[in-house]
């Protein structure tokens, strides 16, 4: 820890700070050093440990065994595919349900004063395990629970993550320049064409940040799949959990975590999460 600390500080020599430091030894940018050290110790180093564990066996020798085991096992591969399918279904349903809500909230007088928006995103402030329990009770009450485990899991996930899709889409739609839509209408485009050619493309960044907030959690958060799937549905997050808790094979678990990291990086690259930083910040 001490090591990382001094490393961080030493890469901060008077170089760029020099100009500001003319005023005094204190420079505002140095304020991020504590957070930088914290991130180095508790985010960067732990991720490096995952990389290390994933490429070594139990005795600490370098090996690719973990990845070979992961990719050659039919059960793990089918779990991965099922997780991706469940996550895809959840994300698509969330987009389909959330977009019209966000659109109406952003464009209609119904949402005067933001009361409706507040009603829609209020669940975000409520503990998600409790919300899951509430949904499970409702499904039990209506007799839907247990009819189809996949359906139940997807309902549970959509219920928990829907607000996280509504908010970013709404944020982009409300900021959108409305004169563009008027221009499109004035130029003779039909409402449908205006939507597909103007509104939808302009709101893609909102959908993208919604996807990043829904897709990854639905692939990994095993709380919902465990409680809604009668224990019969395993997603990739549960696989990792089992390696760390039940089987105590941290190396294999780390390799699975590595696979997730790679999927995350790819999906970030696809949805442009590393760019458009301003838009992402606005939507959160």
């Amino acid at each position: 820890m001490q090591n990382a600390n001094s490393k961080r500080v030493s890469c901060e020599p008077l170089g760029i700070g020099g100009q500001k430091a003319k005023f005094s030894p204190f420079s505002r940018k140095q304020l991020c050093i504590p957070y930088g050290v914290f991130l180095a110790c508790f985010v960067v180093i732990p991720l490096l440990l995952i990389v290390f564990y994933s490429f070594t066996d139990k005795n600490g020798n370098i090996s690719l065994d973990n990845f070979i085991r992961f990719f050659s096992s039919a059960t793990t591969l089918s779990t991965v595919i099922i997780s991706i399918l469940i996550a895809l279904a959840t994300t698509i349903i969330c987009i389909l349900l959330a977009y019209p809500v966000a659109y109406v909230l952003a464009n209609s007088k119904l949402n005067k004063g933001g009361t409706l928006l507040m009603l829609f995103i209020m669940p975000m402030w409520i503990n998600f395990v409790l919300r899951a329990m509430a949904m499970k009770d409702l499904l039990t009450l209506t007799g839907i629970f247990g009819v189809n485990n996949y359906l139940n899991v997807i309902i549970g996930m959509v219920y928990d993550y829907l607000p996280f899709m509504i908010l970013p889409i709404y944020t982009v739609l409300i900021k959108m320049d409305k004169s563009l839509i008027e221009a499109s209408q004035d130029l003779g485009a039909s409402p449908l064409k205006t939507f597909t050619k103007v509104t939808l493309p302009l709101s893609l960044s909102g959908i993208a940040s919604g996807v990043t907030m829904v897709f990854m959690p639905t692939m990994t958060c095993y709380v919902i799949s465990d409680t809604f799937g009668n224990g019969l549905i395993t997603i990739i997050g549960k696989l990792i959990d089992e390696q760390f808790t039940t089987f105590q094979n941290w190396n294999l678990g780390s390799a699975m975590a590595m696979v997730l990291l790679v999927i995350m990086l790819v999906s970030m690259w696809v949805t442009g999460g590393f760019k458009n930083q301003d838009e992402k910040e606005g939507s959160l």
Partner: protein
Amino acid sequence: MKKFLQIFYVALMLLFIYAPIFTLVLYSFVDTPVVNIKDALEIGFSFNLYQKLFNDAALMKIVWDTLLLALIVAILATLLGTLGAIGIYYSKGKLGKSVSVASRIPVINAEIVTAVALVLLFAFIFTESRSYFAMIVGHTVITTPFVVLSVMPKLKQMDSNLYEAALDLGATPFKALFKVVIPEILPGILSGFMMAITLSLDDYIISAYTKPAGFDTISTYVYGAMAKSNANSSLPALRALSAIIFVVIILVVVIKNLVARKKEVN
């Protein structure tokens, strides 16, 4: 017609969101292990579950422990995140950029990956990966980036000349920071603080991996009770707990909104 469709759809979605919550609140007054209509009609309404909840010392301890943890974490995250955001904003060089990129990792990373990574780290340093310290660190890791994200826009909105003006007028950089910059970005800091509290209360996975033996947060306890499932004796009392939490949060959000609107009117 269009208007009718809009209202109909919005109402339908609100029903989807609130039906489970209302069901749970309703059945917090029915002392039955499994939620069903027959029991509601036969047993009728009572405050039994609330009585059970308040008499359950272990459960009440979990509630206070969860709140205390969230408070500690939110204070830490707000301090780190506010300073971090100011530092990132004013650093044009590598330092700010690398802190900013590292700060995005816990946001986009799957929580389980963050959790097992911390397990590896703490097992490496302390040999025992579970501790109260580990849990606080874990929660701070996942909440601080959101403090940064809510402080950053306020920094961008701020008139950058204010700080320079304070310096020109003879304020020390520290004084300029506390008298000029911090008050300007205070709304962002406060919403970051609230966000940190909510995210900490909401967390399950990080807590599950780092919590010391015998310690439970509301999330880990409810999950445990749900996983054990059928007619667990403590589960009905959890309905009373959830109902209280739902009502408190709904009240807080509504009041906050009303206050905000009143300010706007004035």
